[in-house]
């Protein structure tokens, strides 16, 4: 092994011969161009990586380094974005690295039974993300408003009025909360109707998402590419309808269909 020992980083799998033009595209390791390896019916989009940075030991260290992770994640994503020009793409987990070209070919041979099925499933599709964030302030305002209405006519003594008001506010708050829950369910259902497949992912922790409010929906939708504009329009419309409830909808994509290719693949 010399100081410039190289590994083979695999980004995604396509059907053989369907890899789009990748000219001039840089991989996760700067300066290493992206190419492809074809074995049987499958092609892998690959690039070299220096093992001094992407070897097992270095990886453990680097994955803890946020700046490195950011750079690698975005470079990985840039390759996937380009690869998505292919009609069917099966994205791999970040940092899938083989020792040599034979390793890549082995993996493609091992995957010849399951990967074509995954490719078929996602062909002509892309993944979209829709998140619903709840802003608690409108909820509180609505609770106060609703709690306030009946109390004016029904109470006399101030002490009694105070507790009655509190109770009504609580009831109103529960009511608003139930409405929000229903809005979330309906939103997901409407989006799901326009998608070929859908999955609700665990809401991101506020510390991770960095977003205000509570994440009530973290949905991933496998959408036919021809229907992407329609899907985005639907999301925009749903967002407009939710503004008064204090729900903000966030659409992003298109992503490679990470959440629709199955987490596991080939194991011997």
């Amino acid at each position, binding site marked *: 092994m010399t100081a410039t020992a190289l590994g083979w980083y695999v980004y995604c799998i396509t059907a053989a011969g369907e890899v789009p033009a990748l000219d001039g595209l840089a991989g996760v390791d700067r300066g290493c161009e992206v190419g492809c390896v074809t074995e049987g019916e499958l092609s892998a989009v690959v690039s070299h990586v220096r093992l001094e940075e992407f070897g097992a030991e270095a990886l453990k260290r680097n994955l803890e380094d946020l700046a490195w992770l950011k750079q690698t994640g975005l470079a990985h994503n840039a390759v996937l974005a380009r690869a998505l020009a292919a009609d069917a793409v099966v994205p791999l*987990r970040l940092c899938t690295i083989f020792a040599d070209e034979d390793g890549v070919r082995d993996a493609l041979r*091992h995957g010849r039974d399951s990967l074509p099925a995954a490719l078929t499933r996602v062909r002509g599709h892309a993944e979209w993300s829709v998140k619903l964030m709840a802003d608690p302030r409108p909820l509180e305002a609505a609770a106060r408003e609703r709690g306030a209405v009946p109390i004016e006519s029904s109470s006399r003594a101030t002490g009694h009025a105070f507790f009655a008001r509190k109770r009504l506010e609580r009831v109103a708050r529960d009511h608003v909360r139930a409405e929000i829950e229903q809005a979330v369910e309906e939103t997901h259902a409407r989006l799901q109707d326009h998608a070929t497949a859908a999955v609700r992912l665990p809401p991101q922790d506020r*510390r*991770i998402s960095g977003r205000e409010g509570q994440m009530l929906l973290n949905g991933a939708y496998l959408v036919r590419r021809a229907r992407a504009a329609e899907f985005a329009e639907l999301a925009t419309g749903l967002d407009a309808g939710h503004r008064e409830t204090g729900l903000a909808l966030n659409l*992003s994509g*298109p992503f490679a269909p990470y959440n629709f290719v199955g987490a596991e693949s080939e194991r011997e």
Partner: protein
Amino acid sequence: MTERAVVLPTEREVSLVEVLDRALGAGVVLTGDVTISLADVDLVYLSLRVLVGSVGTIGSGSDVVDTDALSLGRGEP
């Protein structure tokens, strides 16, 4: 990765969190005799730790992390 014109104002670009959430938490795991990558279980654990840790790093005002480029969904274009 592109954004649609109708995308809401807070999502000017696909955030790093979106990308890592997918690339670390989903996608096919290929394993073979010569795979160097970390085991999938390790990666998931690591990713969560890294992401949660990242926010702490940003909050502490560390000069190592470029918070602006991180685009942790703060809603600023």
